[in-house]
């Protein structure tokens, strides 16, 4: 059984405005950076997929996953919020845990997540985006 996933950048761009709640720290819109094309072959060799940039209240988070033999073998945060000490603090604790989690979660075969949030939200969305692109 094959599966395929669809994510449209235009929908992300259009809907980011609709579903933003008004908060006191309401900030910039999602970056419109187009997704990086996968590099490397998609056969038995590893292929690297970079997710779309996920915006958070504190800045962009983007994740790159490496897929080998249809399994995620490595997750890396390519950019993460580091504008102030608090950002780095949160990213410092949240991202390494999530790197492991991302790989473990994939092996636990979670298809999707309900309740993703903030910095983790940016990461999670980006991971989902990366998984979508890998057509896992």
């Amino acid at each position, binding site marked *: 059984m094959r599966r395929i996933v669809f*994510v449209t950048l235009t929908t992300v761009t259009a809907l980011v405005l609709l579903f933003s709640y*008004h908060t006191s720290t309401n900030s910039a819109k999602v970056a419109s950076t187009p997704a990086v094309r996968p590099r490397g072959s998609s056969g038995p060799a590893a292929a690297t997929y970079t997710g779309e940039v996920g915006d958070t209240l504190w800045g962009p988070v983007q994740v790159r996953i490496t897929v080998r033999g249809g399994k995620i073998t490595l997750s890396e945060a390519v950019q993460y919020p580091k504008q102030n000490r608090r950002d780095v603090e949160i990213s410092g604790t949240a991202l390494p845990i999530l790197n492991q989690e991302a790989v473990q979660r994939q092996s636990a075969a979670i298809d*999707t997540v309900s309740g993703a949030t903030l910095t983790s939200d940016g990461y999670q969305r980006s991971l989902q985006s990366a998984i979508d692109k890998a057509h896992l």
Partner: protein
Amino acid sequence: MGMPISIHVRGADVDSPTVAQGVEAAFALLREADRLFSTYQRDSEICRIRRGELDPTQADPLVRQVMTLCQEAGELTRGAFTCLLPDVDGVLRFDPAGLVKGWAASRAACRLADLPGFRYCLNAGGDVVVGGTDDEAGGEPGAPWRVGIENPRDRSQIAEVVELQHGAVATSGTAARGAHLYDPARGTFVDRTGSVTVVGPDLMWADVWATALFVGPASLHGLFSEVADGYRVISL
């Protein structure tokens, strides 16, 4: 904040034009909802209604439908769910965004349900709706989708997994956007930790109940058990 919407389709021949058309139809419905309800597009019908420039009775039928649903949701939840929210100046104004999210995603998913022989999972910013049948499983729903519910106190962890073949999962809480959920009874935004997840047949109503149960009094759980047939709650 960004809210990407992803659609997963499973089944044989997912590369077919039929599937691509169904998915495109789903996204088209979501864009339509954005056009009507975006509070960031000055000329959207919702903005014009909020400024008093458009009489609601003259609005698009979909806008009027949402307004009716907002009223029903408020009545059903004894006022815990509301679409009258404080604007930046503190004045209560009609803001159906909380209801539109689940409503629009649910409508979009209907386009996927129209695809015979395929299963789908649509995730709209944490609101999830799944369904369909799988020709490879003899027209049965097939293996369930595994929906992870995030632990609101440790966002790197999954607290529970819900297995679902048909239905919806909606989660409300403060871990995402801070105190953005409004309690109309107290006139304040709710700041407690934790989350409420509702699983049930329809995403819009699951979302309404998740919000209502998060902001409302504990006694609302009793009403939920009585009237929300087919829905269950997970409080974290």
